[in-house]
């Protein structure tokens, strides 16, 4: 190893490195990475700075779910539910959770103010969709959580204006004793467009899995469903109840997610014989093992033929 002096990284660089490691932690593994990172950095202050910046981003990206201290419900930490620094709204119980990101707990809760909540008109739609989605999630995901938020137009009071809801669904399975963790995240944007009289549904699905018994293997799959012609629900907003629109939207979500799961399974089934082959065949074209003792039976490329002598090995 050449003995050039490694220039020590600056404090800023060290913080960036720690942040990078934390942010790239697979689902459910950030605390393990945190522990190892502390040991590697050997500098409490630097670590604390990095963690303070990285944890909120990680938590929101992974849409972690935290219980309220009084067990009155749970809140999902997402960019859609964020209403202030470290404050996240749970529309179901109309509470705001004050969250400690680094320790991934909810410290306390307070009731939400009127300004933080949507209008009763919007809440009808939000609530109806929440009911349908919760039903769907409980049927399909053994360990799923979901939440519906209004991200645009929460102050709309009557028909005639556009508004937008977001459905977030998250399911995680953590099995560190089996060296396996995984997560499924879906984000569905539901836009109610008054002038066009339709509802447009767009979604992003992200699935990850990590298996690390004597190795390190990860799946990272992502899909954006944005062909709006497929998912628009024509509706007469005046005549269509919130319940009906909720039902239609949930049907779309269910259909798309089922399709996506099927396509994932198809990808896996093609692996051993098709996809993998582009990396390495199971056997040569001859369907026999390589004849190490006698390579002359192959039709060799010209340059190899020349240099290969074809002598018997000693």
């Amino acid at each position, binding site marked *: 190893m050449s003995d050039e002096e490694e220039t020590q990284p600056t404090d800023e660089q060290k913080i960036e490195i720690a942040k990078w490691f934390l942010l790239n932690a697979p689902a459910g593994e950030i605390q393990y990475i945190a522990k190892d990172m502390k040991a590697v950095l050997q500098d409490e202050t630097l670590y604390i700075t990095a963690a303070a910046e990285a944890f909120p981003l990680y938590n929101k990206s992974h849409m972690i779910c935290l219980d309220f201290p009084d067990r009155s419900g749970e809140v999902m930490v997402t960019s859609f539910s964020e209403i202030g620094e470290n404050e996240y709204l749970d529309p179901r119980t109309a509470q705001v959770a004050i969250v400690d990101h680094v320790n991934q707990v909810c410290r306390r809760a307070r009731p939400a103010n009127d300004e933080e909540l949507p209008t009763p008109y919007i809440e009808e739609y939000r609530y109806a969709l929440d009911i349908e989605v919760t039903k769907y999630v409980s049927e399909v995901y053994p360990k799923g959580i979901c939440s519906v938020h209004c991200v645009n137009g929460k102050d709309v009071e009557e028909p005639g204006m556009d508004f937008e809801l977001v459905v977030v669904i998250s399911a995680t*399975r953590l099995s560190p004793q089996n060296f396996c963790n995984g*997560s499924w995240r879906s984000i569905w944007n539901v836009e109610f467009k008054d002038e066009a009289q339709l509802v447009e549904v767009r979604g992003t699905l992200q699935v990850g899995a990590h298996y690390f018994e004597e190795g390190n293997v990860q*799946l990272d799959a992502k899909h*954006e469903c944005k062909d709006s012609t497929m998912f628009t629900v024509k509706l007469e907003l005046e005549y269509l109840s919130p319940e009906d629109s909720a039902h239609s939207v949930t049907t779309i979500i269910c259909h798309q997610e089922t399709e996506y799961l099927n*396509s*994932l399974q198809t990808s896996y089934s*093609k692996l051993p014989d098709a996809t993998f082959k582009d990396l390495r*065949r*199971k056997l040569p074209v001859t369907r026999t093992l390589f004849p190490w003792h006698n390579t002359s039976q192959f039709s060799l490329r010209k340059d190899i033929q020349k240099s290969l002598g074809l002598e018997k090995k000693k």
Partner: protein
Amino acid sequence: MEAAMGLMRRIPPKHSEAALSALLSLLPHHSADLLSQVDQPLQVLCDVDSGKEFILCEYNRDADSYRSPWSNKYHPPLDDGLYPSQELRKLEMEANDVFTVYCDQYYEGGTSSVYIWENEDEGFIGCFLIKKDGSRTADGRRGYLEEGSWEAIHVIEVVPLDEATARYCLTSSVMLSLTTNDESSGAFSLSGSIRRQMNMDLPVDEGHLCNMGRMVEEMESKLRYSLDQVYFGKTKEMICTLRPPSELVQTSLPEQINKRRS
């Protein structure tokens, strides 16, 4: 150091190069350990004489130069670099030629290199390397992969036991990644790295190259199978646990609810 290895096990394999260089900058005193225990993506250089590529690794490096197995020259040139003995060089040349054919048969392309050098006590060490880019813009014959890479490093320590037998200790590591991408299913990306060991005592009547070659072949097949079935299989299992595929989930929810009510 243990913490560093812990980090490497959790970071997505596609980021392992960045992770390793980050760790090296934070833990310069552990660089020797890190470099020997963590696999890094393989790089290649082009041999000046033959124009053929060769793979770079610790075993053909001296100072900042790398020795080509084709011309036996250091790139960039080195005044007093280390070279294998004449006898080992002969074995090395033979190994490279045969291994190229092996590589062609299994990898339908790709680059291979073999380096052989004396061991401290007796015997010698051989290192077999393969680098395959399976993306459709490179050597991916069927065009499935938007991105795909298989890199294997096999290090065999050979120690003669007596006139007729030798002990072969093989340590192999494979790093692979593959990504498929299409309109209907989005981006699907699997990546991973595993290491395994295998020891065998074998008769030398057919020569060392045969023995080493067969071990490498057996090991690679095992690793391929393991990655495909066990490792990737586990990730698939995990997804099906998260969201069980079910014929029962109707897309028209009210019917189902009504059925349950009646």
